[in-house]
């Protein structure tokens, strides 16, 4: 029997090239195809299903540069059975990969406009690919603003890159933490409070928001208050994704499947669903 390698339900074998601890509980995996072949092209905001053989499979957003596909980069947090097993992987270990799946961030729609990237906690991972794209196509965008909030200074993801991005004179990077010790000289407060400080034209802005759902709701509300239309705000949703191709129904979200129609949604399309107890 021959297996169709393009079948989205069949995982491809990848080898762990490198694993890096980012912050407590959070790590980055760099993967390369076992057969030395190409990594499928992906768009910013898409995700892969990563399979730990004998343990299980979970959806994880791609956090690498779409213009530099090798290695395939994923950052995730060790919180469940599969992600904890994933953290124990060593270089040269095997992992199954299906994907990429899902909708992507509207980087083309944002061209010619100001772009606001708002991330909370590990929500920066699915948005890092947008940062890479914006930096390498800087001339296509107006003001480029990153708003990033985390729990404490030690919970800031990609700290070295954040510092590097701050040195770009054409990027406005705002970082805040919920709690800080005496040595922290940055902002303290929730990420929504950064919105009023950021330089962008609300009438000509596309905003991309990723983080805990409550953070995304309040951030979107604050963006709306500043004058950004709901059609120009995009959020990345997370639900219990299993098949990743819209067949199993586990990730049904109102009339949509998060795996197939999302994870990136126009906020105006799902706003009403976010406060419903059951959808």
């Amino acid at each position, binding site marked *: 029997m021959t297996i169709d390698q393009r079948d989205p339900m069949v995982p491809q074998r990848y080898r762990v090239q490198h694993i890096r601890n980012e912050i407590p509980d959070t790590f980055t995996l760099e993967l390369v195809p076992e057969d030395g072949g190409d990594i499928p092209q992906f768009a910013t905001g898409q995700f892969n299903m990563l399979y730990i053989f004998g343990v299980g499979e979970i959806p994880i957003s791609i956090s690498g540069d779409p213009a530099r596909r090798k290695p395939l980069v994923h950052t995730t947090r*060790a919180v469940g059975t599969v992600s904890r097993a994933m953290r124990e992987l060593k270089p040269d270990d095997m992992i199954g990969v299906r994907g990429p799946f899902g909708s992507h961030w509207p980087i083309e729609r944002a061209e010619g406009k100001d772009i606001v990237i708002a991330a909370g906690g590990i929500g920066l991972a699915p948005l890092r690919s947008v940062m890479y794209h914006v930096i390498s196509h800087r001339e296509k965008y107006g003001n480029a603003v990153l708003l990033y909030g985390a729990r404490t200074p030690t919970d800031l993801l990609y700290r070295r890159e954040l510092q590097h991005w701050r040195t770009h004179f054409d990027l406005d990077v705002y970082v805040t933490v919920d709690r800080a010790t005496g040595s922290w000289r940055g902002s*303290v407060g929730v990420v929504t409070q950064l919105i009023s400080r950021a330089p962008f034209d609300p009438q000509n802005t596309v905003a991309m928001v990723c983080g805990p759902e409550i953070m995304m709701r309040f951030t979107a509300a604050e963006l709306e208050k500043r004058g950004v239309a709901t059609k120009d705000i995009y959020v990345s949703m997370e639900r219990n994704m299993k098949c990743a191709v819209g067949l199993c129904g586990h990730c049904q979200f109102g009339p949509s499947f998060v795996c197939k129609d999302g994870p990136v949604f126009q906020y105006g399309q799902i706003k009403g669903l976010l406060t419903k107890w059951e959808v």
Partner: protein
Amino acid sequence: MQTLEPVLAEHPFFKGLKPEYLSLVTGCASNVRFEAGTYIFREGEDATRFYLLRQGKVALEIFAAQQGSITIETMEAGEVLGWSWLFPPYQWHFSGRVVEPTRAIALDGACLRAKGEEDHDLGYELMKRVSLILMERLQATRIRLLDIYGKSPGGKVTYPSR
């Protein structure tokens, strides 16, 4: 002589205030600047003024014997520092430490309260504006109380791993 009226008119706190009220408020205003590392006010002191920040960064702190100074929140340009001037006993509940060199407009609390008592329309307008800030700070505090980036007490992750 140039007055602070146009500066006050541009600050988000007073934006849209009637010109006659702006003129009254300007009589209570003064231009101030603070160096990094200094304290604008300290916990327990009389809250005689509040500040409309124009530039810089100020940390609101509280002192705890075992932990030293804990930063509650930071304030930046366009924001308002302090509301203790409005409510008895008119004392600061927190300390205001200058993180980055700061320029601000200081407003005399007793002066503003007196003008608000004389003209209740002005007083009501001021209360509405202060209330809005209180509401925004309360909402921000509630979000922080949710600890959205952490784990719930039962160990369940309240935030997706993605």
